[in-house]
């Protein structure tokens, strides 16, 4: 490899090793942070983008609170639902006991066989009370069976209670009736041994808590939400959500002085809020990592510039004795590549150590080695670009400098 002159380059570098070592350290930290940040961001983005089974974009939620002494909950929700359902562009509207993806909800243990409930074998279900338009208002796809019928809807009750019928999601069906989750028409039991018949199976639907590992374990019961606070879920035709929200706010805001219209919000509001910390972590990691890489690139650039400026005469001399411009560029790029490589080698170790720590903290699979390879390639590229301008400036030095005294 005499043509590449690795030996003299390395020895020149070794004579001024402090600056090079500082840059190598920066590169090591930069690589370690880059690799692990990309890994964590990928996990978060995957989590945020999971399909939730609902027609989220076209759904909004209304919360009403009755507070007056003479407030009549039943009259109020009947009027409200009639008003909402009568609006053009509304596909369906239903009272709901809790809002999916909102972080608020209720869950309970259920059993395939009657008897005393055993936490080991109980199947967890995130329960929601809806009415006959509930399935349509959620916009979920039924894999089997049907939605609730009006005569099945039970009156409101203050206590937690199940109902004789339920619509469940596929993952619950699989757990209750293994192995293939053939649940339609079958019966399961709540913690108080009340039997529940499955009338429908939902392909996929997410429940209340996005951080729960059983997020897709949802059960819908035919029951009116308990008063005096009503929560309505409304699904509109595509693109008409905003306009209908405004109309509903106007109509319901003034229709009854004994209650307060708390808010009217799109379902995406709750989705965003639930994933807010994941989204923010991703944004934060991406911006801090970019800034860190930018600073590292500046460090590389600074080192190369310094090396060029302290060796102007030597460069001139080399040019004068026959080195081409390309040789000069190559000299500085190779020198820089050596520093980068030292940093990358050290960085791989640091990256793996941090990756191990993260996998323990977050209970994630160990860092994928592809990320390491990608990160190293990325750092090499960044190093190359950062050193390119100083190297080209060096090649522009005139051979005549060699003849000058200063």
């Amino acid at each position: 490899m005499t043509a590449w002159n690795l030996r003299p380059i390395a020895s020149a570098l070794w004579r001024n090793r402090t600056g090079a070592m500082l840059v190598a350290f920066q590169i090591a930290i930069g690589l370690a942070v880059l690799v692990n940040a990309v890994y964590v961001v990928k996990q978060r983005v995957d989590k945020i983008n999971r399909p939730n089974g609902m027609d989220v974009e076209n759904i909004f939620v209304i919360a009403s609170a009755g507070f007056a002494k003479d407030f009549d909950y039943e009259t109020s929700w009947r009027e409200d639902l009639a008003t909402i359902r009568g609006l053009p562009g509304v596909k369906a509207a239903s009272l709901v006991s809790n809002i999916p993806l909102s972080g608020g909800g209720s869950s309970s243990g259920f059993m395939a066989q009657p008897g005393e409930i055993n936490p080991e074998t109980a199947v967890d279900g995130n329960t929601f009370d809806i009415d006959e338009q509930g399935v349509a208002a959620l916009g979920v796809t039924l894999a089997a069976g049907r939605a609730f019928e009006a005569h099945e809807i039970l009156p409101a009750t203050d206590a937690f209670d199940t109902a004789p019928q339920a619509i469940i999601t596929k993952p619950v069906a699989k757990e209750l009736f293994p192995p293939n989750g053939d649940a339609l028409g079958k019966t399961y039991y709540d913690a108080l041994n009340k039997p529940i018949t499955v009338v429908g199976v939902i392909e996929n639907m997410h429940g209340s808590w996005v951080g729960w590992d059983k997020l897709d374990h949802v059960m819908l019961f035919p029951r009116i939400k308990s008063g005096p606070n009503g929560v309505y879920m409304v699904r509109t035709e595509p693109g008409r959500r905003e306009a209908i929200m405004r109309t509903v706010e106007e109509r319901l805001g003034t229709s009854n002085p004994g209650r307060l219209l708390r808010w009217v919000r799109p379902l995406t509001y709750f989705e965003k809020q639930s994933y807010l910390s994941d989204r923010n972590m991703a944004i934060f990691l991406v911006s801090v990592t970019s800034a860190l890489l930018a600073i590292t690139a500046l460090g590389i650039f600074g080192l190369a510039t310094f090396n060029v400026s302290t060796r102007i005469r030597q460069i001139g001399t080399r040019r004068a004795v026959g080195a081409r411009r390309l040789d000069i560029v190559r000299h500085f790029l190779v020198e820089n590549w050596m520093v980068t490589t030292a940093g990358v080698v050290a960085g791989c170790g640091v990256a793996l150590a941090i990756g191990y720590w993260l996998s323990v903290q977050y209970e994630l699979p160990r860092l994928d080695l592809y990320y390491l390879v990608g990160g190293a390639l990325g750092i090499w590229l960044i190093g190359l670009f950062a050193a390119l301008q100083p190297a080209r400036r060096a090649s522009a030095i005139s051979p005549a400098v060699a003849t000058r005294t200063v």
Partner: protein
Amino acid sequence: MFGYYLQLAIRNLRRNPGLTALMIGAVALGIAVCVMTLTLYRAMSGNPIWWKNDVLFAVTLDGWDPKQPANEDKPELPPWQLTYRDAMAVMESDIPKHKVIMHKAVGVLSLENQSVKPERALTRVTTSDFFAVFDVPFQYGGSWAPEADRGPEPLIVLSKKMNDKVFGGANSVGRGIRWEDREFRIVGVLDHWLPLPIFYDVNNGSLEEPEDVYIPFGWNAAMELNSAGNTNGWKPEDIKTYQEFINSESIWIQMWVELPDDASRQRFQAFIDNYVIRQKQAGRFQRPLNNRLTKVDQWLIDNDVVENDDRVLVGLAFAFLAVCLLNTVGLLLAKFLNNAAITGIRRALGASRRQVFFQHLVEVGVISSIGAVVGLVLGGLMLMGLRALYTLDPTDGGGTQALAHVDVTSVVTALALALFATVAAGLYPAWRIGRIPPAVYLKAQ
């Protein structure tokens, strides 16, 4: 001498404006990211009542399901709230200096004359000691008497924010206000109070603001109030009436006590253990005896208020600062060596190594001071950006408002840290330049 060094430093910095800007930029960015991350970290997981950490305890009793722990990830912990009946029973003890049982509720606040739009307000239903236990400051008036909890008497305390909204900030003590369908009399108005994270009730996120309304504890039974926080149960119970609910195994009450010394702490621990043993004899509390008095700092860890994400952020901030410092060292070294010829002449003319060292250290000081100022401004901008990230609906308060409050302590900490680190980073280059033998540079001339 210092003035002369300062002059020299400024002249040197002006000589290569590009390099100087690069250095200041690196220092500023490092400081900005540190200020932002530490502020976020403190808001999320700092101990907002550290001065009472040794005397303030959360009370938890393990009466959960004999077949499984309340929190499967941390099976050693009792459930994080109490049942109504246990809270009432433990509250009988007169060992603690202060004690409070409480829960969150929601009520519509309105005025008789309807001059202000009715509003739903988060409300803390609490015994009278709440304000003493957590050192809550009052702007007007004060708490209600302990007897008012039992009555219960229709007395109410408003937050500063609510009083500003409803009464325009005037002293409203003695005036009436309607909560749900009942008339209450205002006895106190709080001063500004924003404990972050909100440690005394960790049920619904830790970046919430404190409640806007406080009413005596007895009103939950009198008005059949449910918790607006979390209510959790393990036992299949057929609950139909409110009486059945408050006698059930559902947990929904938070309890805190102030125990001024070890002796009182041991006595109170013995008191709750004895209570649970008596309950065991009556057939309840079938899990191993596990009743805890938890300090605030441990409480925040137990309840996952200090999250993994927060720790990762702090790690990242330090990695970032490290890179910025390495960068600064490298750039300083390059800059000083660039001027080595001049330093050589100074040395030849009689400047000592010590003087050269201090001259360069002053230069480092100038760079890091400018960097700190720029960094603070940048950090402020980043915090505003962060606030925007956490804001979904500008009209609703909660966590987003909380981040707007820039924590002086964390800013000062981060700033001191960054300044100290930058000057430390300058030590090596300043020393190195002093070691240069003057003859080399004189020869080259």
